């Protein structure tokens, strides 16, 4: 750590940000301060998000859209206000393009069940990368098994970056490109700016799994020109149980509904029904109202931080982490070598110390990392691994957290006599 490096500029702010997150002031049962390095699994929540939820329940909890009375109006305004904020945050053309779901997984499945089952036929190609999370593989496997569509994959280079040399070739006959923007395991940032135009030129529709990108960088769905974009709220400071599917209006309009029930209809008779307008057509039953309101508060908080700073801090922190991890003996780090080519995750192995053992030893030090396949089993198999240890960062992560990680890893190395 060299004082006065550019790192510390972003870190000062991160230190202040920490004060907004109640959990970061807690200690483990062993009295260790919490060093939370598992933000890629789920993020911690700022006071403002927690309060937005309590405030809803304590002050204006009511069901939405149909109530005439005051608190029902307030609840509806807050819920639809969250949608407006989301539309602005991602620069959607309108709120009609923002559908609230449970999580990125449901967002992807929604597209699979409605657009996918309507549009894909035997022999059609679905192009993924080798980086994909299970949530962006298994739905397409099920679809392929039922329709006869076939999965294709963009391969990776030795740093885990997506190889684009054969992109045009693989796009031939491809009807859907379903790719992650940032890998939750290797951190790889996928060059959407090259893939999306090529995909469109080849007549393919593009779904982007934004679960690991949306929390960490400015995402402008219109500049990216993606057709669908899937987001999980819980990874971006919002409550669990709320996610977003962005879809281009023209596409959403042609899609049949997904779940059927209250709120997604316009008229119902015993023998048939007509459907509501966008976005409600895809929101059946009582929504996660508190979740959406919490998501609105989370986006407001992120806007306050400024997404440019969020990404700058992540790059600075990742660069520092890569540098320090590189110096740990026997530690092998996966993914791109340059911090600006990756998100804030660092997956690694260390000698013959199994990732689960590492995670347990680090836990005793209050350092929370993930060990396992991180829902990318096929990618691990491709790398010849069954598991990795993974540290991941977010807005409240600091250089001191990285130091704590390194110290704990050095202790693990001593225990394992590496």
């Amino acid at each position, binding site marked *: 750590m060299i004082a006065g490096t550019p790192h510390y500029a972003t870190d000062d702010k991160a230190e202040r940000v920490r004060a907004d997150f109640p959990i970061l002031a807690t200690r483990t049962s062993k009295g260790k301060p919490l060093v939370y390095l598992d933000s890629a699994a789920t993020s911690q929540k700022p006071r403002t998000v927690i309060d937005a939820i309590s405030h809803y329940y304590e002050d204006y909890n009511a069901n939405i859209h149909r109530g005439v009375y005051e608190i029902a109006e307030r609840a509806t305004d807050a819920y639809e206000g969250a949608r407006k904020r989301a539309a602005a945050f991602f620069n959607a053309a309108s709120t009609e393009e923002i559908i609230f779901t449970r999580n990125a997984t449901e967002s992807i499945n929604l597209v699979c069940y409605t657009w996918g089952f309507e549009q894909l036929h035997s022999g059609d190609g679905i192009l993924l990368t080798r980086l994909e999370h299970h949530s962006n593989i298994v739905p397409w496997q099920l679809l392929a098994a039922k329709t006869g569509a076939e999965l294709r994959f963009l391969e990776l280079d030795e740093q885990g970056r997506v190889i684009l040399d054969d992109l045009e070739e693989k796009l031939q006959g491809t009807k859907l490109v379903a790719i992650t923007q940032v890998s939750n395991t290797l951190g790889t940032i996928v060059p959407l700016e090259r893939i999306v135009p090529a995909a469109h030129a080849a007549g393919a529709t593009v779904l982007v799994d934004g679960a690991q990108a949306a929390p960490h960088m400015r995402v402008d769905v219109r500049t990216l020109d993606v057709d669908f974009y899937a987001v999980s709220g819980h990874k971006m400071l919002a409550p669990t149980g709320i996610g977003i599917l962005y879809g281009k209006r023209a596409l959403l309009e042609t899609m049949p509904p997904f779940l059927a029930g209250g709120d997604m209809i316009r008229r119902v008779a015993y023998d048939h029904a007509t459907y509501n307008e966008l976005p409600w057509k895809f929101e059946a039953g009582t929504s996660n109202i508190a979740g959406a309101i919490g998501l609105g508060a989370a986006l407001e908080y992120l806007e306050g931080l400024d997404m440019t700073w969020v990404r700058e801090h992540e790059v600075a922190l990742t660069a520092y982490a890569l540098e320090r991890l590189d110096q740990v003996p026997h530690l092998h780090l996966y993914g791109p070598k340059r911090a600006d080519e990756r998100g804030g995750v660092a997956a690694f192995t260390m000698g013959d110390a199994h*990732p689960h053992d590492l995670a347990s030893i680090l836990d005793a030090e209050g350092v929370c990392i993930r060990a396992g396949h991180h829902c990318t089993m096929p990618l691990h198999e491709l790398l010849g691994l069954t598991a990795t240890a993974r540290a991941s960062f977010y807005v409240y992560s600091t250089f001191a957290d990285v130091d704590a990680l390194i110290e704990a890893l050095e202790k693990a190395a001593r225990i394992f006599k590496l």
Partner: protein
Amino acid sequence: MDELFYREYILEHYRSPHNYGHLENPDISVEDDNPLCGDRIRVDLKVEDGRIADVRFEGKGCAISQASASMLTDVVKGMTLHDTLRLGKDEIMENLGADTLAAARIKCATLGLKVLKAAALRALERAAETEGQRP
């Protein structure tokens, strides 16, 4: 979890597991895994007169699962099949010298036992069948 938990003898069992490998013509061979973390263990048994005459295991995974399986093979060699079925989490934890373990790690620690019990059960079933076939 206490860091001390990773005692030297656990690492020894991890790096130089006892009774490692496979038996020629085992009476029973059972394999299973822990899907949460990918740990995998296979146990081979030779059974004589309702006792475990010989045992080998093979596997991959974390120190806890592998060391625990290694120690277990020492314990059960010569034991009756019925007695192995009575072994539980407590004995495993005693072997490891641990008071507590996170639930996710308990599954690691007991994977060997789970496979061994499945093997012992199969041996007993087979014995019952043979019994039934006697004239």
